[in-house]
C-alpha cells in the first residue's frame, strides 16, 4: 500500500494559468540572482570596482521591484479567482511525487513581493553610503543580492519544498552577513548561533512537511488548503502536530520564545543587514508561513492558541528587556522580537490580515529605525575614528543631543518612534490597534485571549517607553560624545538620508492601506479586501469578532492613552537625571540589572543546555570512557605515550585495536541478542 499511496492523486484546489506579467514573476528572483553572480565575480576578481558593484547591486533590486509592481498592477486590474501558479520546471518528479519548481502569485505573495523588493531597494541604496568604505564592499552586495533572491523564492514558492529552499537560503545568507566582519570572533559566533538556532526551527518545517506528505499526499499550498479540511479532523492530533511543527519553524526564524536569543546577537552584522534581514524581511517569514497556511492553523484552534500565547508572551517579555538596554541596536533588536510577537498574536487570533498589515507597517518603521540608528552609528563611528577613540559607538550613553548635528535623522526617527508607539494616525497605530482589537474580540470565545490582549497592551506601554527613552538618550539632552569628537559629528550623506525620507513617508501614511471603518477619511479596509481571497477559507473556520461601537472607541482611547503615557514617561524619566557615559556608568542593580542582562536567558541556556552537553561529552565520553576505561583498564600507560605523540580530536578513538575489537564485540553480542529474540 505504501507504494500505491504514493500514486499521484489528482491535484485539487483551484489554480489559474499564468498570463501577462505574472508569467514573468520569476524575473523578480532572477535579477537579484544575477546581481549575486556579477557581484560575486567582482568580489573575487576586482573588489575595488565599487561603482560597478553599487550600480549592479541596487539596480537588480530596483528591477525586481519594477517586476513586483507590474505584477501588482496586473493583479489589481484583473483579480484572479485563484492563485496563479507559474511552473518553471519539474523539480522532484518521480512515481507518485510531482514537485514543481513553481511560483505562486496571489494577493499575499504580491504584498510580500512588494515589501521585500521595495524596502529591500531602499536598504540597498542606503548601503551604498554606509558600506562604501568597507573593503568587502562587493562581497557584501553579493550576499545581500543572494539573500533577496532566496527571500523571494521563500515568498513566491508554490509548495513547501520550494519555500524551504528559500527558507534555508535566507538562513545561510543571514549567517554569512551576521558574521560579515568575521575578524571578530564574537561576530562569527553570533552567525553560528543564528544558523544553529534557525536549524532547530527548520527541523520543525521539515517534519511538518513530511507529516503533510504522509497525510495529504501533496505539498502544494493550494492543494493542501483544499484537501486538508476534508481529510483531517478539526483540532485532531495530526493537524495539531503539523501546525505545531510548522510553528516551531516560525519560532526559530521569527525569533520567538524560546528561540529568540539569536536575533539580538545577530546585530553584530552591518546595520543595513539588521534592517533588511532582522527587521523587515527574513524574520517575518514565520508570520508569512502561518498566513500562507492559515487554513491549517484555523483548523487547529489549540495550536492557534499556542501561537497567540507565545506571541503575546514574546511581545511583553522582549519589550521588558528593551527597557534597560544601552546599545542602540540591541534596543531595536528586542523591539523587533516584541513586534514579531504582536504579529503572531494576530495570526494566532485568526486576524491574518492584521498580522500581515502589521508586518508591512513594521517593515516600514523598523527599517527606518534601523537605518536611522545606522546613520547615528555611522556618525559616531566617524567621530571616534577621527580622534582614535575606542569608545563604543553604539552605546546610547555616549550619545545625547544629536538632534543638533543630525536633524533629518532625528525627525525621521521620531516619526518611526511615534509610529511604533502607536500614536494616531501613524501607520503603526492602525495595525497594532487592529491586532489588539481582534484579541479583545476573541476574548468572547475564550477568556484567555483577554489575558493576551492585556499582555499586548502592557507591551505597548513598554514599547512607547523604551522607544522614547532611545530617542531621548540619543538625540535630546546634552551631548556626551566628548568635546573633541563633537565637531566630527555630522548628518549622513544624502544617499543614506534619501531612503530614510521615503521610509519616513511610508511610516507616516502606511496605515492608508488598511484604514478601519471608523476613520473619517479614505478608502477603508483595502488590505482586508485585497487579501480576502487568500484568507477567506481560514476566516470561515475561525471567524474573528471585531468589537464595534463604544467598545471599539474605548479600546482605541485606551491604546492611545497608553502610548502617550509611555512616551511621556520615557522622555521625562530618561532626562530626569544626568546620564553618565558608558565609561563612567555604575553597574545596574536590582531588577534593572536583571533586565539589562536580558533575564539571564543566555546564561540560563548556557547553564542548562550548552554546558551540560559540553560537560557530558567531556566528562563522560572523554574522562569516563577514555581516561577512565582505557587508562584505567590499563593499556600499560600507552595512552600516555599516545598523548605525547599528540592526540587529535575525539578521545574515544584511542587507536588501540584491542579496544576497537571490544566495542565491536559488545555491539555484536547486543545485535545477536536482538535478532535471536
Amino acid at each position, binding site marked *: 500500500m505504501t507504494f500505491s499511496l504514493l500514486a499521484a492523486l489528482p491535484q485539487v484546489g483551484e489554480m489559474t494559468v499564468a498570463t501577462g506579467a505574472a508569467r514573468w514573476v520569476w524575473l523578480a528572483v532572477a535579477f537579484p540572482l544575477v546581481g549575486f553572480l556579477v557581484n560575486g565575480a567582482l568580489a573575487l576578481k576586482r573588489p575595488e570596482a565599487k561603482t560597478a558593484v553599487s550600480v549592479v547591486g541596487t539596480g537588480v533590486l530596483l528591477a525586481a521591484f519594477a517586476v513586483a509592481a507590474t505584477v501588482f498592477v496586473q493583479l489589481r486590474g484583473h483579480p484572479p479567482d485563484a492563485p496563479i501558479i507559474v511552473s518553471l520546471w519539474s523539480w522532484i*518528479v518521480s512515481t507518485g511525487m510531482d514537485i514543481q519548481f513553481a511560483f505562486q502569485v496571489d494577493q499575499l505573495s504580491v504584498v510580500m513581493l512588494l515589501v521585500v523588493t521595495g524596502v529591500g531597494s531602499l536598504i540597498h541604496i542606503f548601503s551604498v553610503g554606509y558600506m562604501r568604505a568597507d573593503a568587502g564592499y562587493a562581497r557584501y552586495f553579493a550576499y545581500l543580492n543572494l539573500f533577496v533572491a532566496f527571500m523571494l523564492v521563500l515568498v513566491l514558492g508554490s509548495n513547501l519544498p520550494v519555500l524551504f529552499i528559500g527558507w534555508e537560503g535566507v538562513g545561510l545568507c543571514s549567517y554569512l552577513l551576521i558574521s560579515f566582519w568575521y575578524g571578530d570572533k564574537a561576530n562569527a559566533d553570533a552567525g553560528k548561533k543564528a544558523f*544553529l538556532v534557525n536549524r532547530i526551527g527548520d527541523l520543525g518545517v521539515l517534519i511538518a512537511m513530511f507529516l503533510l506528505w504522509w497525510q495529504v499526499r501533496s505539498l502544494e499550498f493550494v492543494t493542501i488548503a483544499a484537501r486538508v479540511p476534508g481529510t483531517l479532523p478539526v483540532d485532531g492530533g495530526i493537524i495539531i502536530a503539523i501546525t505545531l511543527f510548522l510553528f516551531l519553524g516560525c519560532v526559530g526564524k521569527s525569533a520567538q520564545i524560546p528561540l529568540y536569543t539569536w536575533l539580538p546577537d545577530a546585530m553584530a552584522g552591518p546595520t543595513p543587514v539588521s534592517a533588511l534581514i532582522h527587521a523587515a524581511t527574513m524574520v517575518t517569514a514565520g508570520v508569512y508561513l502561518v498566513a500562507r497556511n492559515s487554513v491549517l492553523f484555523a483548523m487547529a484552534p489549540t495550536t492557534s492558541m499556542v501561537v497567540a500565547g507565545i506571541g503575546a508572551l514574546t511581545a511583553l517579555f522582549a519589550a521588558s528587556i528593551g527597557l534597560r538596554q544601552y546599545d542602540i541596536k540591541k534596543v531595536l533588536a528586542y523591539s523587533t522580537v516584541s513586534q514579531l510577537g504582536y504579529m503572531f498574536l494576530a495570526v494566532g487570533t485568526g486576524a491574518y490580515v492584521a498580522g500581515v498589515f502589521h508586518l508591512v507597517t513594521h517593515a516600514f518603521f523598523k527599517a527606518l529605525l534601523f537605518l536611522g540608528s545606522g546613520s547615528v552609528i555611522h556618525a559616531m563611528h566617524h567621530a571616534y575614528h577621527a580622534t582614535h577613540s575606542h569608545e563604543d559607538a553604539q552605546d546610547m550613553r555616549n550619545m545625547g543631543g544629536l538632534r543638533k548635528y543630525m536633524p533629518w535623522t532625528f525627525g525621521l526617527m521620531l516619526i518611526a518612534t511615534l509610529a511604533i508607539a502607536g500614536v494616531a494616525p501613524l501607520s503603526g497605530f492602525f495595525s497594532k490597534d487592529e491586532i489588539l482589537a481582534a484579541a479583545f474580540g476573541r476574548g468572547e470565545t475564550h477568556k484567555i485571549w483577554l489575558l493576551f490582549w492585556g499582555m499586548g497592551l502592557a507591551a505597548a506601554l513598554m514599547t512607547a517607553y523604551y522607544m522614547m527613552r532611545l530617542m531621548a538618550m540619543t538625540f535630546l539632552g546634552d551631548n556626551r560624545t566628548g568635546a573633541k569628537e563633537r565637531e566630527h559629528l555630522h548628518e549622513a550623506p544624502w544617499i543614506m538620508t534619501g531612503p530614510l525620507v521615503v521610509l519616513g513617508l511610508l511610516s507616516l501614511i502606511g496605515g492608508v492601506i488598511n484604514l478601519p471603518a471608523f476613520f473619517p477619511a479614505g478608502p477603508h479596509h483595502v488590505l482586508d479586501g485585497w487579501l480576502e481571497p487568500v484568507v477567506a477559507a481560514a476566516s470561515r473556520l475561525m471567524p474573528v469578532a471585531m468589537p464595534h461601537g463604544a467598545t471599539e472607541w474605548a479600546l482605541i482611547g485606551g491604546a492611545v492613552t497608553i502610548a502617550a503615557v509611555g512616551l511621556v514617561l520615557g522622555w521625562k524619566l530618561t532626562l530626569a537625571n544626568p546620564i553618565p557615559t558608558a565609561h563612567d556608568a555604575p553597574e545596574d542593580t536590582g531588577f534593572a540589572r536583571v533586565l539589562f542582562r536580558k533575564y539571564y536567558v543566555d546564561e540560563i541556556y548556557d547553564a542548562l543546555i550548552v554546558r551540560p552537553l559540553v560537560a557530558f561529552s567531556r566528562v563522560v565520553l572523554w574522562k569516563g570512557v577514555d581516561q577512565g576505561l582505557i587508562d584505567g583498564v590499563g593499556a600499560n600507560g600507552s595512552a600516555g605515550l599516545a598523548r605525547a605523540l599528540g592526540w587529535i580530536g575525539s578521545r574515544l578513538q584511542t587507536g588501540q585495536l584491542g579496544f576497537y575489537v571490544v566495542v565491536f564485540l559488545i555491539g*555484536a553480542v547486543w545485535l545477536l541478542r536482538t535478532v535471536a529474540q
Partner: protein
Amino acid sequence: MMPIDLQTPSGVTLALLPEILVCAGAMLVLMVNAWKHHTGADSRLAGKVALASLIPAAAALAWLWAGGAEPEGRPFMVALDGFRFASLALILIATAATILLSFGYLEREGLIAPEYYSLLLFAASGMMFMAGAEDLMVLFLGLEVMSVSVYVLAGFNRGSIFSAEAALKYFLVGAFASAFLLYGIALLWGATGQTGLSGIGERLAGGELPLMGKLGLGLLLIGMGFKVAAVPFHMWAPDVYDGSPTPIAGFMATGVKAAGFLALVRILYVAVPDAASTWQPVVAALAVASMVVGNLVALSQRSLKRMLAYSSIAHAGYLLTALWPGTRLGAGAVVIYLAAYVLTTVAAFGILGVLGKGGERDVTLDSVAGLSKRHPWLAFALTVCMLSLLGFPGTFGFVGKWAILSGVVGARHILLAVILVVTSLISAGYYLPVIMAAYMRDAGAEDPLGGRRFDRAGVVTVAVAITVILVLGVLPGSVLNSAIEIAGTLVRTGGSSLVGIGR
C-alpha cells in the same frame, strides 16, 4: 528482453562480462608493469590502461542493461536485473573517478608502483561480484577479493608508518569481521539449505526464520556492518581513512561502502524480506547509532580527513535508514542516496588530495582559510561538496535525503525520520565551518595549496562530479524515477511481499 541461461558456462560468462573485463584489465595492467615499472610516466601509463579497460566493461554493462538481460529460469549465482546493473555502474563510476584522481596524487607522493592500478581494478571486480551476487558464496568471495586488494592499497604508501598502521588495523579487524560474516553464511545456509539469495527467499516465504537462521542473519549483519562502517563496528574507519593514501580513502568511503550497501539491500530484500521483523530493529538501531555517533564525533575533529571519515560513518547511518523500510521506495532511496554520496565524496576526497601533502593528515580548517581568494573554483567545488553532504536544498544530496525521508515516512517510522533530520542538522556544525573558512577567513601569506595543483584528470573529475551534483539537485526527476524503477526489478525478483507494501 534478453534471456540468459545462467546454468551454462557461456551464459554465466555473458552475464559476468563486465566483471570479467575488469579482471582482464587488471591483468593487462600487470603485464604492462612487467616492462614499464620505473618512472612516473610508466605509472601514468598503467593508470591509463586501467582507465581504458573500464571502457569495455562499461560497454558490456550498457549492452546487458539496454538489452534487458534477465535470467532464463531462476537466477543463479549472479543476479541479472536492473539493480545489479545500477550497482555495477555506481562501482565503475567510483573506480574511474579514483583512477583519475590518483594520477597526480601518486606522482606527487612518489608512489611509483603501477601495481596500484591493477589492485584497484581487482578491488573493483570484487565489489562488482559482491554487489551483483545472487549467492552468498559469490558474495563472500567477492567481498574477500575487494578486501584483500583494499588492505594492500591502504598500506600502499610503504614509506609511511601511518599507511602501514592503517593497513594493519584494517586487515586485522577486517579479517575478524569476515569470520563473523562467514559464520553467518554457514548458519543461514544451515537454516535454509540454500545459499542462493532468491532460494533462501523462497524457502522462507511466509514462514518464520528458525533460530539458527536468525543467528546467521545477525552474524551476517555484523560482518556487513563492519564493511559499511556502521556504529558500533566503525572504530577502524577513521584511523584507516586517516592513514591511507587519500584517493584510497575516498575509494573506501565510496566504492567499498557502496558495494556493502548494495549487497546488503540484496540480502535483506531478496533473501530475508519475510524476516523483516528480525532485521528491522537491528537496522534501525545501527542507523541511529551511526547517525548520532558519526555526526557528534565529526564535530570535534580538526583534521578534515578524519572529519570526512566520521561524516562517512554518519552517512552509513543515513543509508541504513534508507534501507530500513524494506519497500521498493527503500531500495530506490539507497540507490539514489548512494549515487549522491559517491559523487560528492569522490569530489570531496579529490579536493582534499590537493589541499595537503604526505597523506593529508594535517589538513585542517586553517588549510582552507582564504581559499576563495586564490582558488575561487576550488573553493566553489568544496562548498558544493559540503552543501551536498549536508543535504542542502538544490544539491543532489538533498534529493537523496528527500528520497530516504519519503521511504521512511511512507513506512511509518516517524522517529527514524526525525533522528535523521536532527542529526543532519548537527552536521551543519562541521560542514559549514569549512565553507566559512574558505570564504570568510583571510588567507595566510602563503598559498594554501603551496604550488600543488590538480592535473587535468583531477580537474575534469571534480568538475564533472560538481556539475552532476548541481544539475541533479535541480533536475532530479529522471534519476529518481529510474532509481525506483531499478528498485522495482529487485523487489520483483524477490518474489515475495515486502514489509510496508500491503499495510
